């Protein structure tokens, strides 16, 4: 504070200093005159004896404590003025940096949104998730065993996949989405209800009364007008009366579920692996401690069911880390890409600054002659760069805000969670920090140049744009770095693009032309269908088939690309697998396979004779036949049965169908695309033979999928909806979608990543070619006199310009080789993101290299052509 006050009173100090020295000189002059000097001579001698007025002042200023602050202010002021004085340079610099910052800022905020960590919740880092070899899905049996035995984990809760229901309040229906959660779910996240209460274990055990539900703050305001008497109120959710027990505050971020959370009552007897189990570590308990405890429980056989289906050992993993895991590599690549781009922009501006430093030698030399130390000059350059960087940050944030919004309209990606595109303070702070670093970075090269300024040489060479070799070398390194960075981005973008092409060309195992999938929620309802599922299905199938334009209709629990349900399968007799494993289980009507174009490999498909009273049958896919029996023919006629706890009958395999790409196996929690996944063993059962309890298990959270083949595409959905509502008013369709859309959604993240990286690569290429252009034109400018004279003397221009072109080519080639080396090094990071493309894909590398060569060739060509036209007259006129 004191220093600031003194700083403000600097005018006083300056006047004081001036007066003091003036007084000294006057006294000296008086004395000299008394000694007999003329007044003029006396004044001259006095100043000389003192040692130069300005020099002394500068030295005195150096002794003042406020010096530093003042100097920084002065430098910044001067820097801003210097930048302002050359608007073209400022514009180029700010635009280049702005582009770099914009991409960095946009990607950082996307990544930050994607990883918005539960750490923002009270002690979010102590939230853990139960995983095994097949990732995060567990059964009710595991849930109850672990919850009973774990002492080191305070709260344990489970949640199921997100689902949708019709919520009917005051006769008005609204489609809402949410996640079924067990007791203590909210305690795991450390949040307490705004009003009412959350779920307790007593809720899970109670069998009387309606099921309970907790609603979100948003829904409370939107549908219930924030009325406090909402607690205890009965509402119809998916056709079943639910009692509202609590309202949660606004839970942004990693808490699953949006509008509401019905109570999940997981049965101890549930052996299907479809729920995520979360825990909150006790005070001072590490993940390792909790894991040791878990292992001892496994030893006691607590999760024998999990072992029985070959899922490996259970362990706790940090929930924040688990959440980010599927997109971690993507985010890493994107962040690095953005930083690389920023680096290129920096190199460009540094290069520009360097060029300017050369042009400003006169100014620097003059300042030095007037007593500025070289430290001072360096500080000035740094200050200028900071001013430039500040402009860049401002432009970047502006551009990024526009850019992210535009990106979201182009590709509203769920995978990257970019939905929260609002001003991201963390990202902004990060960018600000980077901005300062960048400011310093871009000032290094010109500062070095300023430091090395040789006063005499500068004045001698005045007006001639020559530079010492080190500066030229520095600029060359910068250009090489730019080209290398552009190559890195271009190659990685190319690899992603090729992955996308491969993925889109994958033989999916089905043909979904003109097929619409209608999703129907049975949440809360299957119990009422008990004993009537057959009638329920045939009623709706008949209604849909009767709609004009419908060519066929089938039903299943899931469609291709989506995962089926994971059920345990007992090791079949005479098979190659001798332990229980999870199998991708689906039911289907006979025409399901023909409607979706799923090929029969051997045996027969279901037919209408495979009803509840006929012998139990099953179809398997090729992966199943291969894994369990070594081949399709061998599988035919074999008997398979679900694990005993599923209480299904033994079934004879009557046919083998083609593999269909799906997200089976790890289930709904992974972000990995179905098309890139290897086929998993699948088991199909005729819909008429599905036991009621399995039907209930499947549809307690997964919707029913009606597969409808139409003549005209999805425009029939409205009439189908109306027609079905006439017979089943309480089971609404959630949505209709084409399988194409499901596939596209599945590919969404891949497309977005490829697009982002290619866009960054395009910007990088442009920036690098500008850098290349600048250095070549600078070389030409330096040598224009020589070139002009040689031109005039009749030298053929190839000989004149050879060295220039050679320089450009050498820089480009070195940059390309360096960039490719870097891409090879990053292979392990990007290879999980690739599909059927090697990280060292020759085609991509060649294409990227050729493109860069072409672009840098063009960048070289322009100054080249200009140089070829140089005549001594024009050259001399410019001197």
């Amino acid at each position: 504070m004191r220093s600031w006050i003194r700083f403000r009173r600097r005018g006083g100090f300056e006047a004081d200093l001036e007066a003091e020295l003036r007084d000294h000189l006057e006294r000296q002059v008086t004395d000299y005159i008394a000694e007999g000097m003329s007044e003029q001579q006396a004044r001259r001698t006095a100043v000389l004896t003192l040692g130069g007025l300005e020099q002394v002042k500068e030295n005195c200023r150096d002794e003042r404590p406020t010096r530093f602050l003042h100097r920084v202010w002065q430098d910044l002021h001067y820097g801003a003025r210097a930048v302002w004085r050359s608007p073209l340079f400022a514009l180029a610099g700010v635009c280049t940096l702005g582009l770099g910052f914009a991409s960095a800022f946009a990607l950082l905020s996307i990544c930050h949104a994607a990883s918005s960590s539960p750490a923002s919740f009270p002690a979010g880092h102590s939230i853990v998730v139960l995983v095994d070899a097949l990732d995060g899905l567990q059964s009710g049996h595991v849930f109850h065993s672990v919850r009973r035995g774990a002492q080191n984990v305070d709260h344990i809760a489970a949640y199921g996949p997100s689902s949708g229901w019709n919520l009917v309040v005051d006769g008005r229906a609204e489609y809402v989405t949410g996640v079924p959660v067990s007791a203590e779910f909210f305690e795991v996240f450390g949040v307490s209800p705004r009003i009412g209460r959350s779920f307790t274990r007593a809720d899970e055990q109670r069998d009387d009364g309606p099921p309970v539900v907790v609603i979100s703050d948003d829904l409370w305001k939107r549908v219930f007008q924030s009325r406090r008497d909402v607690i205890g109120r009965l509402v119809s959710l998916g056709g079943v009366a639910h009692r509202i027990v609590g309202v949660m505050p606004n839970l942004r971020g990693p808490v699953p579920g949006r509008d509401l959370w019905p109570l999940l009552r997981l049965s101890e007897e549930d052996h299907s692996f479809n729920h995520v189990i979360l825990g909150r570590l006790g005070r001072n308990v590490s993940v390792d401690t909790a894991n040791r405890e878990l292992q001892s429980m496994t030893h006691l056989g607590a999760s024998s069911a999990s072992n029985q289906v070959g899922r490996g050992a259970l362990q706790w993993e940090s929930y924040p880390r688990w959440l980010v895991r599927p997109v971690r590599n993507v985010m890493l690549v994107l962040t690095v890409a953005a930083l690389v781009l920023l680096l290129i922009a920096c190199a460009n501006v540094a290069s520009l600054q360097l060029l300017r430093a050369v042009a400003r030698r006169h100014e620097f030399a003059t300042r030095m002659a007037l007593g500025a130390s070289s430290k001072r000059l360096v500080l000035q350059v740094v200050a200028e760069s900071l001013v430039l960087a500040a402009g860049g940050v401002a432009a970047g944030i502006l551009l990024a805000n526009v850019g992210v919004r535009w990106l979201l309209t182009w590709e509203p990606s769920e995978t990257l969670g970019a939905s929260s595109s609002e001003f991201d303070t963390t990202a902004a702070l990060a960018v600000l920090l980077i901005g300062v670093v960048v400011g310093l970075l871009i000032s290094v090269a010109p500062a070095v140049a300023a430091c090395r300024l040789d006063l005499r040489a500068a004045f001698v060479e005045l007006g001639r744009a020559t530079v010492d070799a080190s500066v030229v070398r520095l600029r060359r390194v910068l250009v090489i770095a730019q080209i290398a960075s552009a190559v890195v981005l271009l190659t990685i973008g190319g690899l992603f693009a090729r992955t996308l092409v491969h993925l889109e060309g994958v033989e999916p195992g089905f043909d979904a032309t003109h097929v619409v999938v209608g999703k129907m929620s049975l949440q809360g309802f299957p119990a009422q269908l008990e004993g009537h599922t057959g009638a329920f299905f045939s009623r709706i199938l008949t209604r849909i088939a009767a709609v004009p334009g419908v060519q066929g209709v089938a039903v299943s629990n899931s469609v291709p690309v989506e995962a089926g349900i994971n059920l345990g399968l007992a090791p079949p007799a005479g098979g190659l697998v001798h332990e229980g494993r999870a199998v991708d289980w689906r039911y289907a009507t006979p025409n399901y396979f023909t409607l979706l174009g799923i090929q029969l490999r051997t045996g027969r498909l279901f037919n209408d004779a495979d009803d509840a009273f006929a012998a139990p049958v099953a179809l398997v896919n090729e992966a199943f036949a291969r894994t369990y029996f070594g081949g399709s023919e061998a599988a035919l006629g074999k008997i398979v049965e679900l694990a005993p706890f599923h209480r299904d009958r033994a079934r004879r395999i009557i046919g083998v169908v083609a593999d269909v790409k799906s997200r089976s196996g790890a289930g709904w929690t992974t972000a990995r695309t179905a098309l890139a996944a290897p086929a998993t063993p699948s088991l199909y059962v005729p819909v008429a033979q599905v036991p009621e309890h399995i039907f209930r298990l499947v549809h307690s959270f997964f919707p029913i999928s009606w597969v409808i083949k139409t003549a005209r595409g999805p425009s029939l959905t409205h009439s189908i909806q109306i027609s079905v509502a006439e017979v089943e008013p309480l089971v609404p369709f959630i949505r209709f979608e084409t399988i194409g859309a499901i596939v596209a959604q599945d590919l969404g993240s891949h497309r977005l990543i490829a697009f982002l990286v290619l866009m960054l690569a395009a910007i990088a290429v442009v920036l690098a070619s500008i850098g290349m252009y600048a250095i070549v034109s600078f070389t030409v400018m330096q040598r224009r006199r020589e070139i002009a004279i040689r031109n005039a003397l009749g030298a053929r221009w190839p000989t004149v310009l050879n060295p220039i072109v050679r320089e450009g080519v050498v820089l480009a080639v070195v940059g390309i080789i360096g960039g490719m080396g870097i891409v090879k090094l990053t292979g392990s990071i990007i290879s999980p993101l690739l599909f059927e493309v090697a990280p060292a894909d020759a085609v991509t590398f060649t294409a990227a290299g050729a493109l860069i060569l072409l672009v840098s060739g063009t960048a070289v060509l322009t100054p080249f052509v200009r140089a070829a036209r140089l005549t001594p007259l024009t050259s001399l006129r410019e001197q």
Partner: protein
Amino acid sequence: MSPSKADLPQGTLDLLILKIVALEPLHGYGIAQRLQRISRDVVQVQQGSLYPALHRLERRGLLKAQWKRSDSGRESKYYELTKEGRAHLEVETESWRRLATAIGVILRTA
């Protein structure tokens, strides 16, 4: 400015200034004159380094400055010793004397 004059050893300028100002409050020019007179023909004090030294001493709180009208009617900035300055001068004088004696002994015996 003859080459026979020795440069002032590092740090001694401050000590000399303090010693001169200890006699009476004095302005910069006066200090310069007196320095020259006292150290005539022996050491060379550049006037240019005097003022930074004065500002340094003032900043360290060893000197304090005040604008006063002198006998000639000129308005001048007078420096005088503070309490800390006086203490500092004593300590420094003592240590300088010891050092000089020690060096003298070494030069005589070695």
